[in-house]
């Protein structure tokens, strides 16, 4: 089983397509919508797809054929180690505990695989060590 995070960008023309329905129904994927946004320029959808690697690849090909721009988010948030002071301001505001304070070293590490790209940590980081890699 594979779990992958994508940012899908829709044009105003394809924004009304029932994309997620098809991902579930035709490609048998587990879909988790992290963020969704529609405006005059189209729409942006941040989703997590869970299924076999083959299923996900087929789904991505389908999306691209439907003129949906697909960008895989391997790393949504980046923590600048030189800038981080390990204060821990990010710890309590992260809903999925992607930031962990080591009980021995008192250093903060970021677990990318847990991140759901909500971005709540970005403006909570006083030294500005946490940056977005992709805009939604």
């Amino acid at each position: 089983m594979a779990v992958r995070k994508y940012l899908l960008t829709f044009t105003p023309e394809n924004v009304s397509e029932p994309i997620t329905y098809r991902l579930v129904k035709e490609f048998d994927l587990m879909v988790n919508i992290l963020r969704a946004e529609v405006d005059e320029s189209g729409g942006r959808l941040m989703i997590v797809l869970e299924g076999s690697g083959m299923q996900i690849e087929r789904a991505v090909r389908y999306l691209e054929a439907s003129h949906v721009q697909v960008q895989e988010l391997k790393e949504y948030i980046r923590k600048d180690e030189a800038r981080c002071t390990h204060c821990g301001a990010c710890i309590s505001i992260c809903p999925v505990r992607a930031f962990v304070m080591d009980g021995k070293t008192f250093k903060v590490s970021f677990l990318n695989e847990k991140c759901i790209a909500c971005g709540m940590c970005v403006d909570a980081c006083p030294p500005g060590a946490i940056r977005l890699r992709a805009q939604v």
Partner: protein
Amino acid sequence: MKRTYEEINQKIKKGDAVVMTAEEAIELVQREGVAKATKEVDVVTTGTFGAMCSSGAFINFGHSEPPIKMTKVWLNDVPAYTGIAAVDAYIGATELREDGNMEYGGAHVIEDLIARRPVRLRAISYGTDCYPRKEIDTYISLMTVNQAYMFNPRNAYQNYGVATNSSERTLFTYMGKLLPKFGNATYSSAGQLSPLLKDPHLRTIGIGTRIFLGGAQGYVAWEGTQYRTTTPERNGVPIGASRTLAVIGDLREMSTEFVRALTYHKYGTTLGVGIGVPIPILDEDLMRSAAVRDEEIFAPVLDYAVASRDRLPIHEVSYAELRSGSIEISGKRVRTSSLSSYAKARQIAETLKDWIQKGEFLLTEKVASLPEERSMRRLDMRSREEVS
């Protein structure tokens, strides 16, 4: 068992002093007891690294040709205070650019200077007979100016309140991002490593005390602003904000490792400053207080949804609980975040220990004590008659 500064400094010079960080001292006292630990240890080192808003630096730029009496000064577009001599200015950590951008302020100018990055200096003047020039636009760095020294009117708070938020919306405060409905709680003290908690009545800390400041050797200059001694105590340690220090040190010797510009979203900029104070173990009482643990140090939990100076503590928690990752508020588990870096606090205590062991840092006896009694005054609306 008594020990003098002179004895300790003699040992430091010979390289014989026994120096421990506060964490190591805690372990030793737990293992051996206070009496034995007092005999063994000469100095306990402490450390803290956190947002210290009341920070800034004095700079003397040197004279231009023709000279200028600077009446307004901007450093990288951040205004600096110039109501002092012709080419002196004070850049405060929380001063923001005039365009309303909160991402860059005086703290960033100070960090840029310490990082040896060039800083744009703009100044204007009304022109005088001896200072005819009316404007200047140039670049300075820490290498080009005459003096650049940090002078921070309020640093190293002795304890502080824990912040939380009962309201329905996220609050952006100087205590960080506070989520709605007690979604989190933030605190800002190094607890058992924090300098003023280890000598709570400042027996050994006063004017002239040599300290670790921003990676350099600095000094305690005065009592800090909002210094108060009336905060209730538990285990001999104030529960909540109490004493503070005004500190001074040379910017040129500092490091961005221990002086870091910080931005609190929708609040403003401030400076992260690292401070470490050596506690000479002159007797058992000092050993006892230097070995106070996180379990024994308490802080009040304050609801920042109440935008008033009269917030009542809704709870009281120990630093051990705070550091565990969550505390209980009205039956709810609330996750905690520290705003001061315990990792850096430890690094500071260890660096100071290393300096003392190498004989590079000698202890100073205070020149004068800080006040033993001081209460906080309030600013109320008063008439001329009421204040005269």
